[in-house]
């Protein structure tokens, strides 16, 4: 496979001529480093959440549902209501953690896409920089606000149903939308120019080995995720929906008949069903998200200032982790905690490779700052 070191100088020059897009503190650099940073922190948070919170929280929610069913079996309506309040609290705790993880990563993807479209944005560089800062500020504020919802609650809130954490999170979302709309306005301005020329961008024309590996591997991962999703939709989805209803129905019928043993059996089966659904959806979503991430990162490989062999190694490591995580998440039901542990290691590999690329991009930027490009980069 050909490497791109021999073409690097040309590519860099091409990128620079195409709008001075990667100068120190440029909008593109801010979005790229900030975007990868968001994805890194979002993934790290997701891994910590999966190891220390997710399973424990699911167990507590299951216990509360079991308590509700047992309370129904002994005819204690007040205890039923209290148990459902507890289920609601556990689900809110879990939901806000998942939302924090998902929004950080999704905003990171959006930042990478905006960075890619930089040359098409017909706005002054100073305006683009302000927009990039605004976007990144909002992209951090929303997930941090969402994370705090469970802990802050309605304390000192001027509103009856919405707390300060939600207000700040919504404000962050508004900032992201405004910055994205301004970028869209810039692209529309470029397209409306009667004598517009296609912007030069050496970045998209580059064919680094690492970039090609990431693009092709990412596409294969997306296809794998789609096939797994189609299998889930065709074989399990409707069966799961029927089971969800029938097990809850069994719980209430057996509770009304005061058959505690049958209630416990139904609650146990309901927990297994929840686990089955969770792994199917997580495998589908992670394969596609990692695939898309690999494809996006493939375009930015010319900015990764590492030795070519190391760039390829990190690319393969990212793809390996991206495959290991969804495959072993799927195997969790058969292999139990061992598969869960291996899946977490897969997530760790993706984080490690992403961190290496982020460092490579920081190093590359430093060289541009110093005003030279060396061909003998160290990995």
């Amino acid at each position: 496979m050909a490497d791109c070191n021999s073409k690097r100088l040309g590519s860099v020059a091409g990128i620079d001529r195409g709008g001075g897009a990667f100068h120190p503190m440029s909008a593109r650099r801010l979005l790229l480093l900030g975007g990868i940073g968001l994805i890194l922190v979002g993934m790290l948070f997701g891994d910590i959440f999966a190891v220390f919170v997710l399973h424990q929280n699911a167990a507590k929610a299951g216990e509360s549902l079991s308590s509700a069913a047992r309370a129904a079996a002994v005819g204690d309506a007040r205890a039923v209501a209290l148990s459902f309040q507890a289920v609601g609290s556990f689900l809110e705790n879990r939901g806000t953690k998942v939302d924090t993880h998902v929004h950080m990563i999704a905003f990171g993807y959006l930042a990478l896409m905006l960075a890619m479209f930089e040359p098409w944005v017909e706005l002054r560089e100073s305006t683009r920089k302000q927009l990039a800062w605004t976007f990144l500020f909002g992209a951090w504020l929303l997930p941090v606000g969402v994370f705090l919802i469970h802990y802050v609650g309605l304390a000192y809130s001027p509103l009856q149903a919405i707390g300060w954490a939600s207000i700040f999170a919504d404000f962050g979302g508004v900032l992201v939308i405004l910055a994205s709309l301004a970028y869209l306005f810039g692209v529309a301005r470029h397209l409306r120019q009667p004598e517009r020329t296609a912007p030069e961008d050496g970045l998209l024309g580059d064919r680094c080995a690492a970039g090609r590996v990431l693009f092709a591997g990412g596409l294969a991962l997306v296809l794998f995720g789609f096939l797994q999703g189609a299998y889930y939709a065709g074989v399990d989805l409707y069966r799961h929906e029927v089971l969800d209803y029938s097990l809850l129905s069994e719980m209430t019928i057996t509770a009304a008949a005061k058959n505690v043993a049958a209630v416990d059996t139904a609650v146990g089966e309901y927990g297994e069903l929840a686990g089955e659904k969770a792994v199917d959806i997580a495998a589908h979503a992670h394969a596609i998200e990692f695939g898309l991430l690999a494809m996006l990162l493939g375009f930015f490989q010319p900015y990764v200032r590492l030795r070519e062999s190391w760039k390829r190694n990190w690319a393969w490591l990212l793809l390996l982790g991206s495959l290991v995580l969804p495959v072993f998440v799927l195997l969790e039901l058969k292999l139990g905690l061992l598969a869960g542990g291996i899946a977490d290691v897969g997530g760790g590999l993706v984080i490690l490779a992403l961190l290496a690329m982020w460092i490579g991009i920081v190093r590359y930027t430093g060289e541009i700052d110093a005003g030279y490009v060396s061909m003998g980069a160290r990995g």
Partner: protein
Amino acid sequence: MSAARRLLIVGGMALALLGMIYGGWYAVFAEHQELDGIGRSLAASFSAAAGQNAAAAQSALEQYRKLKYDYDRHVDVHGHWIGLAMLLIVLGIGLDRVSFGEQVKMLLATALAVGSFLFPLGVLLETLDHGSVPRALAVAGSALVIVSLAGVTLGLLKSETGN
């Protein structure tokens, strides 16, 4: 920019916009109502069971089933439209790496764009009509996406082995 690339990038942006507008509408006008309803009907069902009122428990559970069915699909539509839109844009940017003629690329791009629109639309229509037509639309849309994505992968493989 070739017609196939333009279709994927512009189509992707339009689909992302559609997904966000739909998500905004859903979050404001439907999501909280559905979630409240799911929680309330489930609690009502267990409370009725505590009072040994099996009929009321079943009736509340039936309401839970309908709301959960709609809620899952509404969330899926939002997520899939935006996710597929991002994929269309990224594929549009990288389409010149695919080693096929312009006609084949246009065919693949059209199938991807149409499938990406139809698949979540079919899922959305399932909340309005439980018959086989919306389900068939969703299956056809997802099949179009998968087949055309396999085609793009093949084209990329062809170009890589050519290198």
